């Protein structure tokens, strides 16, 4: 038996460290070759680290949330045969690059006082306690009375709890005070429950993507002189065009949302306002105006907010934009988006669709200088000359970095977008 130390591999170009966001194994567990050990997160992407060898986990290199430098010890495995070589696991994403199996340390790792291998399986072989019943399903067959002592019945009555709904973990399914406590903690589903003060405090570690979002947002709010500008857009014509296009190409093309139209409008508008499609390096005090329009699309994913980027929108037509947005949003939600797809935007659009509200105050995706927020569409009576007519109205709530964008310019920029959206034919006129 020997010990193998698995190091954090190089998980991406220019990446010096990564945060452990999830352990897939625990100390004492045996792992197979290629079994996923952990998920680590770099600036944008999450990478899974497979095991280079089969063995038993002896120690983990960091807790969840801990940051490891590339080359640091990720995990220590007990392996059959001679161990002692330090190995870097190949990240799953970069599987094409074989890890250099360089024997770093000449001195063999000393045999560690590891517990005999019998003990971990013994622990695992402990028969499930009768108390650890399946948490799902009804607590007992219907019609069977709950078994509980008078003291518990009284407590339940005082708390407005129907004991028939409470699972009993005691002998013969007897309900204990602990069972009642657990039920009360879990929150009864019965609407009859009395209202009582809840003094619970749950501590949730801010790790991984959430930590990154927190850092980015705070940094943006701290450094950028935000101001927001809201304008109302009549999207009646645009919506008519959109639905007729969708009806026409039901089968052969991706369904169009508002997003690709807005992206087309943005491409046209930034041609007139190049200061909007720019990155402001406030330390170097320079502004990079980009020719290419790389639009970040703020996307809600199960693990939090991500911003996949549609690159070179100026080279994409309406349908291509739509297809790319669809592809990237899906990839981001499924955690498949690559680092490249999650970086390099020059301006950002944020839309909550039906949840868009009336007005939002978007936070700028620093070092960008502008973000366009889309609000909800509403059919409203609009006065046109002599009468009210029903029009589909929508607000755009946009934020700008006032350090480099003046209000006047921002207003003209938004008016330009508005006029493009209100007369959608102009979206497709070549300049």
């Amino acid at each position, binding site marked *: 038996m020997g010990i193998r130390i698995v190091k954090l591999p190089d998980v991406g170009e220019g990446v010096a460290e990564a945060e452990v966001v999830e352990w897939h194994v625990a100390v004492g567990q045996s792992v197979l070759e290629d079994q996923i050990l952990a998920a680590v997160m770099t600036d944008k992407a999450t990478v899974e680290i497979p095991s280079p060898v089969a063995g038993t986990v002896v120690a983990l290199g960091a807790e969840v949330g801990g940051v490891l430098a590339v080359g640091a010890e990720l995990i220590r495995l007990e392996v059959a045969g001679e161990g002692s070589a330090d190995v870097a696991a190949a990240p799953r994403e970069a599987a094409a690059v074989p890890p250099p199996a360089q024997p770093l340390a000449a001195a063999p790792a000393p045999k560690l006082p590891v517990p005999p291998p019998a003990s971990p399986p013994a622990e695992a072989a402990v028969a499930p306690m009768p108390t650890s019943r399946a948490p799902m399903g009804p607590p007992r067959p219907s019609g069977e*009375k709950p*078994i*509980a*002592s*008078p003291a518990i*019945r*009284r407590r339940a*009555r*005082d708390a*407005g709890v129907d004991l028939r709904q409470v699972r009993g973990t*005691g*002998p*013969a*399914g*007897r309900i204990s005070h602990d069972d009642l406590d657990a039920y009360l903690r879990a929150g009864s589903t019965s609407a009859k429950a009395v209202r009582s003060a809840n003094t619970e405090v749950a501590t949730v570690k801010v790790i991984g993507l959430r930590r990154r979002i927190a850092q980015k947002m705070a940094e943006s709010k701290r450094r950028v002189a935000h101001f927001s500008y809201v304008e109302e857009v009549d999207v009646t014509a645009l919506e008519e065009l959109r639905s007729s296009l969708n009806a026409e190409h039901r089968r052969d093309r991706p369904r169009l949302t508002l997003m690709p139209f807005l992206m087309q409008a943005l491409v046209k508008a930034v041609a007139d306002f190049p200061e909007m499609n720019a990155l402001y390096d406030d330390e170097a005090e320079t502004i990079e105006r980009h020719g290419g329009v790389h639009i970040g699309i703020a996307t809600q994913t199960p693990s939090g907010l991500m911003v996949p980027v549609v690159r070179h929108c100026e080279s994409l037509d309406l349908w291509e934009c739509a297809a790319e947005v669809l592809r990237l949003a899906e990839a981001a939600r499924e955690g498949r988006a690559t680092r490249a797809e999650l970086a390099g935007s020059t301006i950002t659009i944020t839309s909550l669709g039906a949840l868009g509200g009336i007005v939002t105050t978007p936070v700028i995706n620093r070092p960008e200088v502008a973000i366009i927020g889309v609000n909800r569409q509403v059919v409203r009576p609009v006065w046109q000359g002599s009468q009210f007519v029903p029009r589909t109205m929508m607000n755009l709530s946009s934020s700008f970095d006032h350090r480099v964008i003046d209000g006047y310019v921002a207003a003209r920029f938004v008016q330009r977008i508005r006029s493009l959206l209100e007369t959608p034919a102009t979206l497709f006129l070549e300049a």
Partner: protein
Amino acid sequence: MAEITAKVLVIGGGPGGYVAAIRAGQLGLDTVLVERGGAEGGLGGTCLNVGCIPSKAVIHAADAYHRAVEQTAVTPFGLRVEHPAIDFARTVEWKDGIVGRLTSGVGALLKRHKVKIVQGHAELMDGKTCKVETDTGPQTIRAEHVILATGSVAASLPSLPFGGKVISSTEALSLPAVPERLVVVGAGYIGLELGTAFAKLDAKVTIVEAEDRILPAYDAELVRPVAKRLQALGVDILLRARASGLAEGGDAVLIEDGNGSKRSLPANCILVATGRRARLEGFGLERLDLTMNGPFVAIDERCATSMRNVWAVGDVTGEPMLAHRAMAQGAVVAEVIAGHRRVFDSAVIPAVCFTDPEIVTVGLSPEAARQAGREVRVASFPFQANGRALTLEAEDGFVRVTARADNHLVLGIAAVGAGVSELASSFALALEMGARLEDIGGTIHAHPTLGEAFHEASLRALGEALHI
């Protein structure tokens, strides 16, 4: 007319009513209790005045006397008593003394908790008002809540109306002398308890029962030791027989057996003990037009009747007509009125039969459990194998445990034997706490006590009995 207003009005001062009033007083509710008093009543109701307590006093006296009589022959342990005699008038006097102490104790408890007691006959006007004819004139009481605790009365037989030689249990407990020949109609627990006591006091007792066995409410296995003892005491038992009336002259009862043949049974005294019925008349209940549950006032689990803020507890609400049920209901109602979330949700109501030997039942019988669709394990432990029972010369009887076959949850416990009434509390506790056979088997029962039979019966159900 004087008028009182209160938060709670309790009608009836028996175990249900006085407990409700005490608890209401403890909870700070302004409470008035009306008790009419009279031959059958007074504070404490049937239980204290003419039921549980006085009957146990007479049974004790009869036991002591009869034991002494048996000891005129040399006992196994060498005791010999000469010329025992009992002065029954003194027995009744002693019994009245006990009743007096207890009823005045109830009065003191009510006063301590600031319950106003109004003596007199209550007549309900509506669901919030009643009129009471007191010694000092009529009184009107208005209350937000009314608790009906009017109890029950001995049921009479049309063929043998009460009066003269035909008496109920009430009169039987205050007879001037032990009757020479006593006929008891009804072999339920009241008839058997009193019949046994008078047999021990040297009366010639005959028990007449319409069913084909005595104590029809209990299973045959439990009743067997009682039947054996009655036989030893020389009590005649006529089964499948009915009392069809008094013979000409009134000194005999006409008995009709199952075949229709009639005969005359001489009697100085005829005790009719065929059950009790709810007291529903004579206090204006009909004005409330409450929903009934057969011959009883219908209540829900909070003891609420069909009329808002009118509550009912005890015998007036139905079977089992037991003082401890009424007391538990009384406490529940007071707490509900005080705004607590309470229901009457006891898992079991123990029942005790003070026959010789005594019978205790708590929870389900094996038969009832099987009828409820349960697979059961049943095990008994005889007192013959219990050391304490032998030293008490009381080896008749047993403890029987009924449990679910699958998870050993105890469903019912019963015992028959001398002094087993005192085991009722541990039986009830086991069932209320949801004990399994292993819980009882794992509890050390003090040695030497009768309770060890409970322990051993549970072990036996598990196949682990040690002493049999």
